[in-house]
């Protein structure tokens, strides 16, 4: 409580406010930007089957012939009322997004949940032996994983665990009306593929930070006073690494919500990433705009949290001491 009343609280309030302002800017950028994308939602949907007159007619019916700013104002108004509009498929966007955002967030959340311990453990393990075979192995392994595209990894996992061993379902066919969380067996491989790809970045950054901390006089001193290695990692290395790691985790996590397209495809997982790409490809502007706004808001929130984390995790900043 004292924290919130103090400098941290002020900082947080300010950040949330700027976050809101940024979101407003983002909404304009997104709306106008998406509108400028090549392609036309009507022709994209009608395909070659429609005559130009019909296209024009439909454009008018969809209000696409109005100036972009007018449409922006209408859209924003709707958004504020909680109505992100209607997809070009005729469905309300809110209905299309309802579950999918949650499903993707579930995937990303689980992934981050595993990412934190995995990347910390691997990063610290490598950092404790810089330049040694163990370090090389971890680093090279992580790099190999990140170099192999996620859909290749995902396909490999399917071949191994589903087709080969028959341990897990190959496709996440979640029955209608069920939430994915009730089918953990269908989550294993999507989460694992994302984890394998996403962890490389965190591992490498954590390793780099930890190496420099471990080489410093503080760790030397702790070791000289006979503090156990595990305690050193916990009390001196991890706290020093966390401010950077938290950035990476949060940004990676939010990135997974919209960015796990290919993994969602391979497993036919009903997430928002696939929807985003389908909508982009099909020129379904209202859907694209809504998803981008949601992802944008989530990212901005994550960034605020990351900023806050840096302050909270760095005593010098948290206590509002001199710079």
């Amino acid at each position, binding site marked *: 409580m004292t924290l919130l009343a103090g400098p941290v609280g002020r900082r947080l309030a300010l950040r949330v406010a700027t976050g809101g302002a940024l979101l407003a800017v983002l909404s304009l950028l997104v709306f106008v930007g998406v509108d400028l994308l090549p392609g*036309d939602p009507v*022709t994209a949907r009608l395909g070659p089957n429609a005559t130009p007159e019909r296209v024009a007619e439909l454009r008018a019916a969809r209000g696409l012939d109005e100036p972009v700013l007018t449409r922006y104002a209408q859209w924003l108004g709707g958004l504020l009322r909680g109505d992100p509009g209607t997809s070009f498929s005729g469905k309300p966007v809110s209905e299309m997004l309802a579950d999918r955002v949650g499903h993707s967030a579930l995937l990303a959340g689980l992934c981050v949940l595993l990412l934190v311990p995995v990347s910390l453990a691997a990063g610290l393990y490598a950092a404790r032996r810089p330049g040694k075979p163990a370090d090389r192995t971890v680093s090279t392994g992580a790099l190999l994983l990140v170099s192999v595209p996620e859909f290749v990894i995902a396909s490999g996992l399917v071949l191994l665990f589903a087709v080969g061993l028959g341990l897990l379902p190959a496709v996440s066919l979640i*029955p*209608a009306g069920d939430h994915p969380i009730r089918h953990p067996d269908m989550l294993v491989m999507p989460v694992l593929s994302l984890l394998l790809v996403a962890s490389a970045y965190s591992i490498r950054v954590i390793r780099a930070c930890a190496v420099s901390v471990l080489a410093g006089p503080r760790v030397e001193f702790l070791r000289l006073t006979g503090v156990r290695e595990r305690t050193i990692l916990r009390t001196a290395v991890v706290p020093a690494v966390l401010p950077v790691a938290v950035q990476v985790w949060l940004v990676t996590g939010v990135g997974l919500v919209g960015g796990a397209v290919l993994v969602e495809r*391979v497993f036919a997982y009903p997430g928002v990433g696939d929807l985003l790409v389908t909508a982009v490809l099909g020129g379904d502007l209202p859907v694209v705009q809504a998803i981008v706004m949601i992802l944008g808001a989530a990212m901005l929130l994550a960034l605020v949290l990351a900023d806050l984390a840096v302050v909270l995790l760095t005593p010098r900043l948290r206590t509002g001491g001199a710079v």
Partner: protein
Amino acid sequence: ACGGSSDTPGGTDGAASDATSDTPVEGGTLRAVFAGAGASESLDPFAGTSPVDFVRNDVIYDSLFILRDGAPEPALATDAEPAADGMSFTLRLREGVLWHDGSAFTADDVAHSFRYMSSPDRPLPSELQMYFDMGNVTVEDEHTLTVPTVQPIGDPATMLASFPAKMVRSGATDFSTENAIGTGPYRVAAFEAGRETRLTRFEEYWGGASPTDELVFSSVSDPQARVNAVRTGQADYAGDIPFSTAKAGIEGSDLEIRTAGDTNRTGFAFVLNANRAPFDDPKVRRAARLAVDRARLVETVLLGYGEPGNDLFCKGARYFSEARPLKRDLEEARRLVKEAGAEGAKVVARSAEYEAGYNDSTKLFVQQLREIGLDAEEQIVSLAEFFDPAALEEADSVTFSSSPLPLPVIYGRMAAYPSFALPDDEFGAAFGEAMAARTDAERRTAWAKAQDVMADRGNTVVWGVADILSLARTNVAGIEVRDQAKYPYLGKAGLA
């Protein structure tokens, strides 16, 4: 119905036909996976755009007529008789048809359906309104209507069968899970867009109840994932699987790769823009057709699952003209190009991956055009911009494909699109004749005439016809092809 599994060159490893001789037994659940459209899937029969939408809605709703082997067959309607001037027709409906909620199917439902499907509020207003005046239908009695047309139509049944014209209940505008009521063999039990539909058998189906208790459709966009679902036992049938999968083969004694037969192939083509240089010159169009290496394209893009095309669309449709494909003749092609003074002419070949193989075939086509002295280059764009009318008009060649639609449909579409249309008087006349013709013989002559023009100086380069492959458990039986093999009819399917 349409057998013939022997002559699939690529499927030497014994691709079976979709329609197996086995008949399904009563009961059980059939699980099928098709490509879906994610969250935009819908139970509205006029909103769906993806295979799973089509396949699903085909068994929930019925059409007035269906296509079988390219010919219309009565379904909810028994008869469509054109008036003398061809400017209207009388539609007679089947009696004793019940909706899933038990009410009776009547002419009012048809009138509403016509209005609903052609309403400009629909995301995809029906193309039928290019031919019929759908808003001005008059209901004569409970089972009879009169439908005015906008041009003389001699064979309205074919048109009604060719375009998705599902019948919905009078007044229906909401197609949520509870309100998706049709007359088809299955009713909706559960639906989640982009994921799954569960259908249960409708016992009072007018065509006789289906064998299977339950049909489960899953949407899986990735072809490999569809294959995997069947392979690992999560599904019994996967529609539209890639050639490469078939080529690699799938082990498992209870699995088989099936083709839809050689009358149900997709024609792959490049449509040349005959309204601008250089393809406004029939010589250059012919040169392009001589330049294209059909065998190579079939081998590369279709991996041999298909055969070279004769540049005409809709092989397998009624009245299709079985001309022999042109032989590749680069010398002659170069000569023609030179003669037309089109050497070094710029050719932009526009493509997007609308279907697998579009971009690859375009790349090969461009190289082949270069060999005859045209300065060709591909223009690969995103799906969203592919059909932009202005851009299409700027392109010299557009990659395109079609299943064996009835000829009026395909040529009607092409005529409606400036950059696809062939500005040729003889062709135009023959096409008009064919549309208005009231007897089979007249139509046959007219279509032969029109296709002769196409074969001589046409603007379509249908380089190959491709098999439609699916993966099924061997005991899956009763799968039918109606209008398009990619969207098979599962109303009579089940497990043997």
